[in-house]
């Protein structure tokens, strides 16, 4: 006897349809988890005076993402980057970050914002609970202040306090040797500028107690003209100047200070000078500016770092920047964390990231670590040296000592009430 199907929908089909409907309505998370590609959102600055840094962040991310995708992706899922321009405006960065998650379906965020925008994106990450790695903001409080801490956010960036400890130690040595007691400061008037300058001065005075700050200037971010600032500093007649101006602001400042022969009248310590962004743009680079390393392919002096710098340049026909290595490292961390967690689930990846040490071309000893207690990057190559107007631009970088950084950073955190 053969069974004949009755016309209409069978009970089995109805159950199957109901089941499928229930899954699609009730579990967008399940649908996402099964998606082949994983979308990672990235708000960054792609226009305006610091666009070059944002572009170099995007380039570095894509360089590493291509490698990860070629090797099979994150836990078998190809990465699709969704990168948007915040124009450097905090409110726009926050809006974009929210939209990337809620509308574009991004499961993670790489926050390529400067400090002005990263705090805004941080609040979005807090609100949405999405995994977020800050890749550009150096303001120490972003991860050092426990009030800012959330389990799903990390910072894969050099830190102002680390730079200040190493820079102040380096500067204090020169101050003592050359008798530089009268100092001036000139830094941008926002969180990064104020914090970093305060920290540098704190440690400079600790290492060289004779030092006195006789003049402070706080030009606004992206100020077009520094003439009044330059002449004010010249009037004060300091023996040394510290500045954490950066990008186009720094080059503009150098061009304007150059014609006042400022660099022959005082020792200048510009922490952000040793980055190709500034080094290659300034047409008449003065010799002998002291600077912290940002990204140069000769520091750390390893074949891995040089190879990475060359690969970047070969692909994009330009030099990488300080923001480049930080963003590249963030992708490297994500890749290793997903492998460790064997999952792309944000919560599991966050757990795997906490305290994770990975091999990295930018590590002081070939590795970098995402410190567990405050979710920030440590162990990266950090040092100071003096500029020359052609490659390798900063030939004599003196490496900072991480043991000293850890000790003094712990003291600093205690003094700020962070621990």
């Amino acid at each position, binding site marked *: 006897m053969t069974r004949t199907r009755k016309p209409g929908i069978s009970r089995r089909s109805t159950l199957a349809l109901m089941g499928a409907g229930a899954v699609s309505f009730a579990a967008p998370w399940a649908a996402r988890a099964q998606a082949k590609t994983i979308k990672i959102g990235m708000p960054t600055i*792609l*226009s*305006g*005076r*610091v*666009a*070059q840094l944002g*572009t170099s962040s995007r380039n570095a991310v894509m360089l590493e993402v291509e490698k990860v995708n070629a090797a099979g992706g994150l836990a078998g899922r190809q990465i699709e980057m969704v990168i948007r321009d915040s124009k450097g405006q905090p409110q726009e960065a926050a809006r974009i970050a929210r939209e990337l998650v809620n509308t574009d379906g991004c499961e993670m965020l790489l926050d390529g914002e400067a400090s002005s925008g990263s705090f805004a994106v941080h609040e979005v990450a807090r609100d949405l609970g999405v995994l977020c790695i800050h890749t550009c903001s150096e303001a120490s409080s972003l991860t050092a202040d426990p009030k800012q801490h959330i389990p799903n956010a990390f910072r894969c960036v050099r830190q102002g306090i680390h730079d200040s400890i190493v820079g102040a130690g380096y500067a204090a040595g020169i101050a003592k040797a050359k008798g530089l007691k009268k100092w001036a400061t000139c830094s941008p008037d926002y969180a990064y500028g104020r914090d970093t300058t305060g920290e540098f001065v704190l440690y400079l005075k600790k290492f060289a107690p004779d030092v006195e700050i006789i003049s*402070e*200037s*706080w030009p*606004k971010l*992206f*100020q*077009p*003209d520094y*003439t*009044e*600032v*330059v*002449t*004010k500093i*010249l*009037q*004060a007649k300091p023996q040394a100047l510290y500045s954490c101006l950066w*990008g*186009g*602001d720094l*080059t*503009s400042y150098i*061009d*304007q200070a*150059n*014609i*006042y*022969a400022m660099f*022959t009248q005082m020792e200048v310590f510009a922490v952000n000078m040793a980055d190709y962004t500034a080094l290659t*743009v*300034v*047409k*008449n680079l003065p010799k002998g500016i002291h600077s912290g390393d940002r990204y140069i392919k000769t520091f750390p002096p390893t074949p891995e770092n040089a190879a990475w710098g060359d690969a970047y340049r070969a692909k994009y026909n330009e030099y990488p920047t300080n923001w480049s290595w930080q963003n590249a490292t963030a992708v490297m961390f994500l890749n290793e964390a997903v492998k460790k967690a064997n999952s792309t689930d944000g919560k599991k990846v966050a757990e795997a990231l906490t305290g994770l040490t990975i091999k990295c071309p930018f590590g002081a000893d070939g590795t970098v670590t995402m410190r567990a207690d405050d979710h920030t990057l440590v162990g990266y190559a950090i040092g100071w040296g003096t500029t020359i107007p052609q490659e390798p631009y900063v030939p004599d970088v003196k490496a900072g000592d991480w043991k000293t950084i850890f000790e003094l950073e712990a003291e600093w955190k205690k003094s700020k009430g962070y621990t």
Partner: protein
Amino acid sequence: MDLDALASCLTSPACLVTQTTSGLIIGMLLFLVAVGLTLIFGVLKVVNFSHGAFYMFGAYFAMTAYQLTGSFALAILSGAVGTALLGLIFERAFMSRVYGRDVLMQLLVCYAFVLIFDDVVRMIWGPEFRSMGMPAAFQVPPLFIAGGVVPPYYLLLIGVALVAAVVLGLGLARSRIGKVIRAAAHNPGMVSALGINTGLIYGGVFALGGMLAGLAGALAAPVRSLTPGMGFSVLIESFIVTVIGGMGSILGALIGALLIGLIRSFGSLGFPLFTEGLMYLFMVIVLVSRPTGLFGKEVA
């Protein structure tokens, strides 16, 4: 507030020379941008919100010409002539269509072009900041006058701006074309009835305004970072200068620019955290005591 620093500067010849020169530099560059703005308003009765873009184009034209030829003179010329042509095309193609319209409409059109021009610059020269570099002739040590520091390049800048001010002032006051322009500003209908092409005058005035802003951009290029959108902050300061001096007044623009330059220069010593605020405060004081600005005339 550091009134001691200000007081000690006012009694030191070296400091007075340095800060006064610094004020003149800031002021004269602002004047070149503001005078174009005020001229266009005075004759065309248009608040040209896109004026900062011409400053930006002047800088980029100058940088490109300098890179191609290595000649600083050609760079300056390219900045000025290039923006004059751009101004003429812009006026004939777009601005001439909104004369006499509501001021909000004019502002909206101008603002749209601020964004369009920024994107055009981004497409042609890229989004990253650029630097033209100081010409070799000016890579020399600064002059020391009474102990004060004065860079030679800034003397050139002040000189060019002063020449522009004198030529413009005399040209408008004494020349035939100047008289026609002034007549067109007062009574365009009558000028038109006399057989004079007012469209040509309007286009010419807009081109002249653009040229002055372009000249300022070209002169600033060796010492400022070039980036899309660089004209905006200059535009805001130029508006302040124009408002302080009196909309439409060339002498007002000159005096307003110099006052703003000196306020910034000396204010940075005495009020280092309030230099910007000082500028706005001064504008408020002027407007409260003289709503038409220092040299502005009451509009009937």
